């Protein structure tokens, strides 16, 4: 097989270098390509600024129609949860409750996250098939169901960029090791469950 042959060659080169040492040099094997030629792959949105959001727009009403055609089977009526997945509506204010409800409305710190995610992954059986206008319309519909844009809203790059999401300030960066434990060997406290019986 092609790759096996190549691996063998690479392994042999590695062995030689291990014995002799210091014979590696900065080989360059990449082919130059222009950003224009990468455009079809360049789908990411830098969600904190909206950088990468394309031209286009969509309304809540258009989003409702697309949702009914392409999304409702898995996500349920009005995105309230369906055959495959749970609700995408509500949960705002639940982060300090014992049970947090995670939805695009309650969880996302930046509104463009929904555009980025829907465009790259949805619908699950035909991802990257939606037009940018359709993705904007679905974002309008989902955020409307979450009470974050009005019924008559038209959503585009600018509106997504300017939306202030409820969980904007809900994040912190990695602060671990946050847990410290002692290496007790004798007369230690017994292991116990988190929830006391």
């Amino acid at each position: 097989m092609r790759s096996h042959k190549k691996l063998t060659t690479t392994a042999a080169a590695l062995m030689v270098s291990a014995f002799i040492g210091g014979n590696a040099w900065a080989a360059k094997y990449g082919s130059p390509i222009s950003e224009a030629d990468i455009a079809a792959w360049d789908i990411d949105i830098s969600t904190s600024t909206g950088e990468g959001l394309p031209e286009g727009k969509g309304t809540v009403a258009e989003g409702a129609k697309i949702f009914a055609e392409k999304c409702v089977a898995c996500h349920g009526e009005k995105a309230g949860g369906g055959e495959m997945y749970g609700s995408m509506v509500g949960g705002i204010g639940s982060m300090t409750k014992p049970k947090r409800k995670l939805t695009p409305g309650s969880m996302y710190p930046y509104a463009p996250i929904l555009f980025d995610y829907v465009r790259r992954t949805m619908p699950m059986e035909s991802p990257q098939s939606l037009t940018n206008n359709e993705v904007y319309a679905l974002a309008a519909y989902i955020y409307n169901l979450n009470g974050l844009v009005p019924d008559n809203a038209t959503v585009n790059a600018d509106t997504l960029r300017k939306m202030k999401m409820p969980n904007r300030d809900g994040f912190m960066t990695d602060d671990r090791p946050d847990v410290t434990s002692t290496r007790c060997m004798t007369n230690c406290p017994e292991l116990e469950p988190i929830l006391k019986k």
Partner: protein
Amino acid sequence: MPEKEIVSPVTAGITSQADAERLQFEQRRNFLRNSAAFTGAALAAGAAGSAPAQAAKLAVNKSNKEMGREIEPAVYGMPSKFEAHVKRRRTDVLKNKQHWSDWSMTPIHQQPGITTPNGLFYERHHAGTPDINPDEHALVVHGMVKQPLKFSMDNLMRYRAKSVFNFMECSGNTLTDWQQAKATTVQQSHGLLSCAQWTGVPLSTLLDEAGLDSGAKWVLLEGADGSAHARSIPIEKCMGDALIVYAMNGEALRPENGYPVRAFLPGWEGNVCVKWLRRIKVSDKPWHLRSETARYTDPMPEGKWRQFSMTMECKSVITRPSGGMMLQGPGTYEIEGFAWSGNGTITAVDITTDGGKTWRRADLEGPILDRCLTRFRYTWDWKGGPAKIASRAVDNTNYVQPTITDIAKKRFTSGFVQHHNGIFPWSVSEKGEVKNAIA
């Protein structure tokens, strides 16, 4: 062996599956002990158990008296038909309603060495496994670089390769078992864990070739699968030990593990090691995608969420005896398991057999490698009464594996909670039944 053979909870006596599994493992252990592979292995000298019964008189093996199977002209070898029960399995503890964004778990209790066979390496995908033709696959590096570049697989394989032994663990490993004992077996509780020798090109080689712009701080890794799964990675990791790998355990990556090429970030959670890698984009800030805000974040007190907690901290678990197994009466038993740390090497593993009151050092079996599964062994003289056994690992940063109650002092543990590295106890009943004792 039936298709569905998740080890069921031990009821009266022994379930056939648990029994069969135990006997098969016993036979294999004895075989391995007597083979050259285990010569010199650190098998602790245990206390004297009950005297073994006299073995029966031997007859000549049937296999000694006939020719075996002939060598085929070209074949990919498969395990013995008698090992058909050793399988990667979806869990039925947390059942997804579809199996494209789902996971399957490694039978770590059936893994004698520290490397996981490729066919048993755990899986986690977000839109199923694509079958990608390497001749048609390309990887691009662009964004804040001086020259955007495209690499074919042939291009990538021309660079000087690097191989490393490292574990990989899903950030969600053990997440069903914080507050309640949900998993029956260690495969279900800890099977989103595997270990391999990875071979590829340092990511820094590709970024250096493209030339980073000043101010480059974060890098997006994106897959060519149906989810185009993507994560933001700090530039320090990318210019440090991050690899772009095309092989594991001496052969090309398996499709479910990212064929033909994936990222591998030693010591970090599996989902950042983006599979079917097609695009690397450099920026001055993280992207804050769904996969790093609404998912793969840790719930913290006061409604907060912790982001970018990607290192898998020091952890261990006893794989034998473990949930669903049955001890066959009082006597000596080998306790064994794995310890690992995304921050370095394992320096010690302690074992308790009395529910945490006293701990004794286990033997560590070499090689003890940086961010790699490390095998521990401990001989236990079980007197026959109820017992609770657990392991506790320490790494070379002097981090001590915490109890779940230690973790719960600092973190919120209700819901779909990642990064469970708590000490995991198994209870042993008077009859010898081994069960999940996390709660």
